[in-house]
């Protein structure tokens, strides 16, 4: 409810304002500070942190990136002429497969230049999001864990269950193979490798290794990522002028 009250502070058509006044004593809340001119940036920063939250609301001890925030933001960035490029900052432990793949597909199909950078960790479903950008970066110390998709809760031990799981896994594998330089076979091999992780099968790829496997394009930090994005923006502008 409060959200709506704040949202009412946004500019609205004049007649709507009048109608609101006519309904009179409607207490709405606002910030007690003078309006400063809105700052404008040509770069849109998509922060993917904690768990990627999909259909279920996570308990409050989780830090989450919510699907319903991110998807409309990407639509807005694609539409808004002031946004010239998108930088995606990843530090995520994974999360909902559907939400993660949806965000990854949205990023991959944007017409504006996109650059992603993995800092800290970009694990599990964070991998497709990282590779979805035009150019992906990974910090030297950042890691990405590639492991099999698991079913939780009641699992029926029939062949169909395995087939279903395999299908879900293929969605992730195919997306990653399509959007990076790693092959499906290599990614699958990393996913099912034994002896690397203490309590699981899979691989933990760190910084430079991710680049060597072809998963990520370059090792670099924020200046490399923003430099690349600015180059892409310039190149796109040049194309439009010709």
């Amino acid at each position, binding site marked *: 409810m409060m959200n709506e009250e*704040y949202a009412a502070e946004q500019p609205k058509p004049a007649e709507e304002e009048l109608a609101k006044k006519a309904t009179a004593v409607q207490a709405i*809340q606002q910030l007690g500070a003078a309006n400063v001119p809105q700052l404008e940036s040509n770069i849109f920063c998509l922060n993917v942190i904690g768990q990627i939250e999909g259909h279920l609301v996570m308990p409050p001890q989780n830090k989450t990136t919510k699907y319903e925030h991110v998807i409309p933001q990407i639509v807005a960035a694609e539409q808004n002429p002031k946004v010239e490029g998108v930088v995606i900052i990843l530090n995520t432990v994974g999360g*909902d497969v559907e939400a993660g793949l949806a965000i990854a597909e949205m990023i991959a199909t944007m017409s504006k230049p996109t650059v992603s950078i993995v800092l800290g960790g970009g694990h599990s479903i964070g991998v497709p999001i990282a590779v979805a950008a035009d150019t992906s970066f990974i910090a030297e110390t950042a890691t990405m864990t590639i492991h099999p998709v698991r079913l939780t809760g009641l699992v029926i031990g029939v062949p169909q269950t395995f087939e279903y799981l395999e299908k879900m896994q293929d969605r992730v594998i195919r997306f990653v193979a399509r959007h990076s330089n790693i092959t499906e076979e290599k990614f699958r091999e990393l996913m099912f490798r034994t002896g690397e992780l203490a309590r699981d099968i899979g691989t933990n790829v760190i910084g430079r290794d991710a680049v060597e496997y072809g998963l990520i394009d370059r090792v670099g930090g924020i200046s490399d990522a923003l430099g690349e994005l600015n180059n892409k923006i310039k190149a796109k502008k040049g194309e439009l002028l010709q």
Partner: protein
Amino acid sequence: MIHYTILPEELIFFDSNHQKRPEQKEVVIDGVQMVIQLENASEATIVRILSPNPDHYLDPRFQPGNKVQLFPKI
């Protein structure tokens, strides 16, 4: 729904800390989307900015931990 994450399920879905958490709300103030924690009826603390505009993070009024005054407008 399938969760593809490195965190074990019990860590995600089981809240070991059962104490009541202060109420948090998602609001838009001066065009900046943020999460605030209500302290009382007229005051709140900024917890986190959700805006994708990097410039919003430089606005000194909207630094996490800052108090925002809420007052009714008639």
